[in-house]
C-alpha cells in the first residue's frame, strides 16, 4: 500500500469511529504528543476523539539521507480518544486491517513500554506493538500531563507511518517507500534530509538559538499571565525545538540539558494551568 494510501485509509477508518480528522499543527515539534489537540485535549473532562498526521522533527536523528533507517523529519499518525473506550485494543487491530495488515495472519505482540516525556512533564502506561517483530505503534494510556493527574484517561495511539509502509511494501530502506505509484519517499525528502542535517549539525547559529530560547521563554511567561495560553504554548514548543537543535549542534552540556528540560516542563505546566483555570471558569458560568 502506498504511503499516501496508508494515511488516507487510517483517516477514513478513524473518521468512521467518530474521530475528528484534523490537519497537522504548523510548528516544529519532536513528537505528535506536542500537538495542542493532544496536550490540551487530555487535560480536561471534555470528551475528545481526533486523529491527524503529525510531522516530527528530531534534529539529532538526521543522517544526511545516508542511513536507510534514520530521518531527521518523519511522520506520525496520532489518534487521541478520551475517555478510552473499553474495546480500544480491538479498534486498533481493526485499523491494521484497514491498511492491509490482517492481525489474524500476522504476529501482533504488545510489549510493555511505559512512555514518558520529561519536557512535557507527562507519562503514561502502555506498549510498543510489534508486527512480526517490527515495532509499528506506540500505545499509551496517559496518566499525567504537564504534571497534572488526568481524569478521565486519554488513550494515545501513535503509528510509525514509515515503518508501516516499509513493512507493507517490503522495502529495506525508508527512501524506497512508494509515496504513490510513481514517486518514492526518497525523492520527496532526500534533499531536505541532506540540507537540514548540514544545518542542524554544522550551520545552526548557536548564539541565535540560545537567544531564541530565552526570548520565547520570556514571551511564554508573559502571555500566560495575560491568559493567552495558546500563543504561550506555541512559544513553549519553539523553546523545545530550539533546544533539540542546540543538542544536535553539540552545544548542550549535561547540566544545561537538565536545566532546559526543567524549564520547558515548567512552561508547559504554566500553559496547562491557565487552560484548566479558564476551562473551569467557563464550566462555572454554565
Amino acid at each position, binding site marked *: 500500500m502506498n504511503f499516501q494510501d496508508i494515511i488516507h485509509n487510517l483517516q477514513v477508518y478513524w473518521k468512521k469511529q467518530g474521530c475528528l480528522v484534523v490537519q497537522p499543527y504548523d510548528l516544529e515539534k519532536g513528537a505528535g504528543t506536542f500537538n495542542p489537540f493532544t496536550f490540551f485535549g487530555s487535560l480536561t473532562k471534555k470528551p475528545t476523539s481526533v486523529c491527524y498526521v503529525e510531522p516530527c522533527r528530531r534534529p539529532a536523528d538526521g543522517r544526511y539521507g545516508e542511513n536507510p533507517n534514520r530521518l531527521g523529519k518523519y511522520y506520525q499518525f496520532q489518534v487521541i480518544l478520551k475517555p478510552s473506550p473499553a474495546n480500544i485494543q480491538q479498534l486498533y487491530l481493526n485499523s491494521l486491517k484497514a491498511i492491509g495488515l490482517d492481525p489474524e495472519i500476522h504476529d501482533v505482540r504488545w510489549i510493555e513500554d511505559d512512555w514518558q516525556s520529561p519536557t512535557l512533564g507527562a507519562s503514561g502506561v502502555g506498549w510498543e506493538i510489534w508486527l*512480526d517483530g517490527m515495532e509499528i505503534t506506540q500505545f499509551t494510556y496517559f496518566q499525567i500531563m504537564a504534571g497534572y493527574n488526568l481524569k478521565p484517561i486519554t488513550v494515545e495511539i501513535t503509528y510509525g507511518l514509515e515503518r508501516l509502509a516499509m513493512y507493507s511494501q517490503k522495502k529495506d530502506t525508508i527512501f524506497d517507500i512508494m509515496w504513490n505509484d510513481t514517486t518514492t519517499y526518497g525523492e520527496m525528502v532526500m534533499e531536505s534530509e541532506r540540507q537540514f542535517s548540514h544545518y542542524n549539525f554544522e550551520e545552526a547559529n548557536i548564539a541565535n538559538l540560545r537567544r531564541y530560547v530565552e526570548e520565547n521563554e520570556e514571551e511564554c511567561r508573559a502571555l500566560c499571565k495575560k491568559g493567552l495560553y495558546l500563543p504561550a504554548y506555541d512559544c513553549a514548543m519553539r523553546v523545545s525545538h530550539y533546544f533539540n537543535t542546540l543538542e544536535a549542534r553539540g552545544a548542550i552540556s549535561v547540566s544545561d540539558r537538565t536545566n532546559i528540560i526543567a524549564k520547558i516542563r515548567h512552561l508547559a505546566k504554566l500553559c496547562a494551568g491557565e487552560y484548566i483555570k479558564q476551562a473551569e471558569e467557563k464550566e462555572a458560568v454554565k
Partner: protein
Amino acid sequence: MNALLQIGTEHLPARFLRPALQQLEENAVNILAENRLKYSALETYGTYKKLVLEIKDLAPVSEDISKEVKGPPAKLLKDANGNFTPQAAGFAAKNGIKPEQLIVKETEKGPFIYADIKIKGIKTDKLLAVIFPQLIKSLNFAKNMVWEDSGFRFARPIRSIIALYGTKVIKFEIAGVKSSNKAYGLSSFKQTPIIIKSPEAYKDALRNQIRPILVDLDERRKALLRSIEGCTKALGFQADLDEDLINETVNFTEHPIALAGDMALSFMQLPKKLLTTVLKTQIKMFPVVNNKGELQPHFIAVRDGVSVNQEEVKTGFKNVMTARLTDAVFFFENDLKLGLDKMREKLKNINFIDGMGTMEDKTKRISALTSALAKELHFNQTDTENAKQAAAYAYADLASSVVYEFTDLQGYMGAVYAQKEGRAPDICTALEEFYLPLSANSELPKTAVGSLVSLAGKLDTLAANFKVGQVPSGSQDPFALRRQAMGAVRIILANNWPLSINNSVELASKNLPESQNNCLKELPEFLWQRLQNILEEKQIPEDIISAVKNFDKPLNTVLLNANILKEELKSPTLQAVAEAAKRVVNILKQAPQNLPPLNTALLKEEGEIALNKAVDNLPKAEDFSKELKNLASLKQTLEDFFAKIMVNVKEAEIKNNRLALLKKVKAVLLNSAALENLKKRG
C-alpha cells in the same frame, strides 16, 4: 462444588505474571481462612491476559463459630441498682452480643462473666461476592495505572471477569466491569465470548477452541519446547534453550508456536555472545546450535497462537533480525577500527562516582593496586606483567559501542577486542574474567591473573564507595557493593592467598582521592560480614565465628581456625579453659587501669606460683591446633588457682599482683582466639 475467578485484562507485562499468580494464591488462602471457608485444594494459573484462581470442593457454607470467651469477674456484671456495669456492657459489645446474653460461670478463681458466642456460617455464594472483589483489589504490581472513571488501579485495564461457584455466576462489579461466565479467545482475533459452564470446564473450554489457549503455565511451557523441538529436528540442530527466555516466552504467549528461519552467513562472524544477546534480549528469538554448542545460521521465533501465513511472517522476523544484527555488525566493526588503546583514552570522559574521578583514574588505581597485590602475593614476573596489562585495559570496553548498547557484555567484549589485536591469551582471559563472579554463588575467575585483576577492581570499587560515604544499609545497596565484597572474599579464599582484611583495605585505599564523608573505617567490618556469611554456610556456630574474628590474619587462616576450633571444642578440657578465660576476663574488668607489673617475688601460694610457671612453660606452638591443645593443658592449673586462691584480698599489693598475674594469663589465653566469646557447651 468448585469455584473459579478469572481476571481478564489487556496485555500484562510478561514480568508481572508469575508474581501476580503467586499473590493471588497466597491472598486467597488467607482470605478464605479469615472467612472460615473450607476447600480441598486451590491453584492459580493464567496468561498475560487471564489471571485465574480455581478452588476445589469449596464448602457451601462457612463454618459456624461456637465459643465461650472469659470476661471480668462476676461481681462486675450488674451494679447495686441492678443495671449492667460499663465493664459488662463493653465486654458484651466487644464480642458482638447483648449484655442480656452474658452468662456467669464458676471457675477455680471464683465466678466470672462469659460471653457465649454462636455465629452461624454464611452461604458461600454470598461470601464469594465479597471475597472475589477483595482478592482482585489485593493484588499489587510493580507499577499500576488508571483507565476508567472509578479510578481503580491495576497493572493494565481489566476488561472481563469470570466468577463462578459451580454453575452459578457470582455477581459483582469492579472498575466498571460486571462479572460473568464469558471468556475471550486470542487477542488478535474477533472477541466472541466463550461461555464457561462450570469451573472444571474452564481449562478444556479454552483448550478446545479452534485456536486453542493453554492457560496452564506448565502446559504452555511443554507446548513451547515441543514446538521448538519440531523446528530444530527439521534443521538437524538444537535450540539454545535459555531458561530466562523460555520463561519470558511462556509469560507473553497464550499458545506458543515456534517457527524457524535462516540467518545470513555473514552474521556468523559476530562474537557468539553478542549475536545471542541481540537475538534473546532485543527480539526474543532462540539461537540455534549444533551438538557441540556452536552457533548455526538459523533462528527460532515464537508466534502467539497462530500458524498460518508462516512464510510471510518468517520474512518479517528475518528482516527485523537482519536489521538488528546489521546494527550489531556496525557497532562491532567500529569498535574494531577504534581499538582498545583509543577506547581506553575515552575513559577520561566517563565518570566513575562523584568524588572518585573518571574511569581513567580508576584504571590507574587498579593498575597500581594490581602491582601491589602481585608483589604482596609473590607473583612471578610473567604473571605480574600480564596482570598489569589486563588491569590497564580492564575498563577499556566500557567506551566501546557494543558495550554501550549491551552493558551485560562488558568484560567479554574487552576479551574479544584483545584477541583480535593479538594480545597474550592470559590477558584476554583475565579481561573476560574481570567481572566474575556475577552473583553470590556463581562462577569465579579461573586463572590466577584473572583473579588478581578482578580482585583489584572490586577492592577499588568498595574502597572508593566507602570513602565517599556510599555505604550500603538495610535493603539499600544501589551499587551492589555486597556482591562486590562477596566476590573479593571468595576470590581471596579460592586462591588461598595470604591476604587479611586490613591488609586488603589498606592496599586498596592507598591511591584514593581525599573525601569529606570518609567511611573507610567501616569497610573491614563490611568485608568481615561476607566472610561470616561463608562461615555460617559451612555450619560454623555463631560464637565460634566471633571467637576467631580477626582482621589481621589471612582470610583462609580465619576459615581454617574456625574449623579447628569447632573440632577442638569437642574436648571438655578446652571447654573448661574457655570458661576459665571468661572468668579471668570478668575479674579483670574491675581491675584498676594502671596495674603494677607482675612481681614474681610476691607470689607465695602454691596455686599462683604453679599458674605462673605453667604459663611460662607453655611449649611453642607451630599451629592453631597445637596452640589450643597447649591452652587445654592449663585446665587443671587454672581450676586449682580459682579453687584455692582468693584474688580480692585486703592487702592491696598482693591483690594487684594477682590481678597482674591474671592479666598475663589473659594475654596467653586470648592470644589465638577470643575464647571469652564462646558459649557454654552442653
